[in-house]
């Protein structure tokens, strides 16, 4: 069609970067079909993008020292704070995090007590997500239409008197259902939620044995993000392949709703 704009170099970049709408994509694709040199360039650009993303993706990880890094240069005092006070600032920061989500006990330095069995929580949560969230027909054992039964059953297996399934409607996710699975070698619960676009998140609840420490962390493996915390003798993990700010909202919502 003569009214179509000619394809510019900027269009080619925007095509490679996925910024074009359908009509413009079609326009560029027609152009590529007729111009072998442009097609070669496109193929190179796409390969560059893919190569660069793959090369640096492994660096997108949380480290155990991250909380300290953020707390380090002082959140309360000005720059000249003596080194030994940074611990106090870090504690204040963790405390502030507690204020964010509910009522945490300050903790979370690398030298603080380790989380023992719960160390595996984010990994288990991410595994469970990868295995079950992609299931089309059998993502859960008990579907949302039997929510009351689901809560009662899992509450019984986890020995939680009034286990309630979190309600995430306020952040746009509705319950798919839940299942029983091992968490830290004990019976644990997994709840799955889904938004209108079909993106899923899972919420894992596990028994935390004798450990009473509490922390609030991110883990990121293979593109799947987990936000996890331990509250008294229960551990929680919220996992999804969604923007982290949204995942955090969901985690906060869960924290608010779960009994402590």
């Amino acid at each position, binding site marked *: 069609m003569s009214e179509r704009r000619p394809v510019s*170099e*900027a269009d080619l*970049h*925007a095509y490679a*970067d996925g*910024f074009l709408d359908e009509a413009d994509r079609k326009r560029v694709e027609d152009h590529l079909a007729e111009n072998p040199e442009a097609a*070669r*360039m496109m*193929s*190179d*650009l796409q*390969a*560059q*993008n*893919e*190569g*660069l*993303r*793959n*090369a*640096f*993706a*492994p*660096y*997108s*990880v*949380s*480290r155990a020292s*991250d*909380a300290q*890094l*953020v*707390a*380090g*240069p*002082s*959140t*309360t005092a000005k*720059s000249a704070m003596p080194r030994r006070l940074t611990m106090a600032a870090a504690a*204040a*920061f963790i*405390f*502030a*995090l*507690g*204020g*964010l*989500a*509910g*009522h945490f006990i300050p903790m979370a330095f690398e030298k603080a007590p380790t989380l023992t069995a719960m160390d595996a929580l984010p990994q288990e949560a991410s595994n469970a997500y990868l295995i079950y969230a992609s299931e089309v027909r059998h993502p859960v054992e008990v579907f949302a239409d039997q929510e009351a039964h689901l809560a009662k059953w899992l509450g019984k297996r986890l020995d939680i008197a009034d286990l309630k399934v979190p309600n995430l409607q306020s952040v746009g996710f509705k319950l798919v259902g839940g299942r029983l699975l091992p968490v830290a070698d004990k019976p644990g619960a997994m709840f799955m939620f889904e938004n209108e676009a079909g993106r899923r998140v899972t919420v894992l609840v596990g028994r935390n044995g004798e450990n009473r420490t509490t922390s609030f962390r*991110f883990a*990121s*493996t*293979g*593109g799947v993000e987990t936000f996890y915390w331990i509250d008294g003798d229960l551990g929680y993990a919220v996992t999804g392949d969604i923007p*982290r*700010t949204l995942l*955090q909202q969901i985690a*906060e919502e869960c924290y*608010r709703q779960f009994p402590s």
Partner: protein
Amino acid sequence: MSRSPDPHGTGEGGGREGHASPPPSFDAEILALLPQLRRYSRSLTRSDADSEDLLQDCVEKALTHRAQWRGANIRSWAYRIMTNLHLNTRRALARRPSLGIEAAETTAAPIAVSDPLERNRLVQALEILPKEARAVLMLVAVEGHSYQEVADIMEIPIGTVMSRLSRARQMLRQTLQEENVIHLRSPR
């Protein structure tokens, strides 16, 4: 990213334990951004050590300049700080030889689509790019920012974003072609 006026924790956390709590969302958001900032930092620098230095400087600056944050887009703001630090600071150049990206192999395993050998060549080819052009390319290709976001982050016109992007990609193409690597996906 939209920030609603809803401060976290007004519901239940008010006045806990007598702490005059600073707005916790700021620290939490910086913390949440660290993995992507770490990736960006590594994509701008030549070594893991340089990358961690840049990341630390960036976090420190973000925290000390928190008052300048207008509550708008904290992600772009953090990227701007890191970009400026990188462009304005002359970092210890050959502090250690460029190691390529081998170190990445020992961390999390990415979905390995391309041949690692060719990926190394690509990453090494980045060293020929001017810093500004490299930053633009990384912001777009690795960090997934829109051209407008890159213009905001770098405080340059969008036309300049496009010309730097084009230059970076052209230089990479040329270098890789000279090395006889035309398509990363080609079998050989």
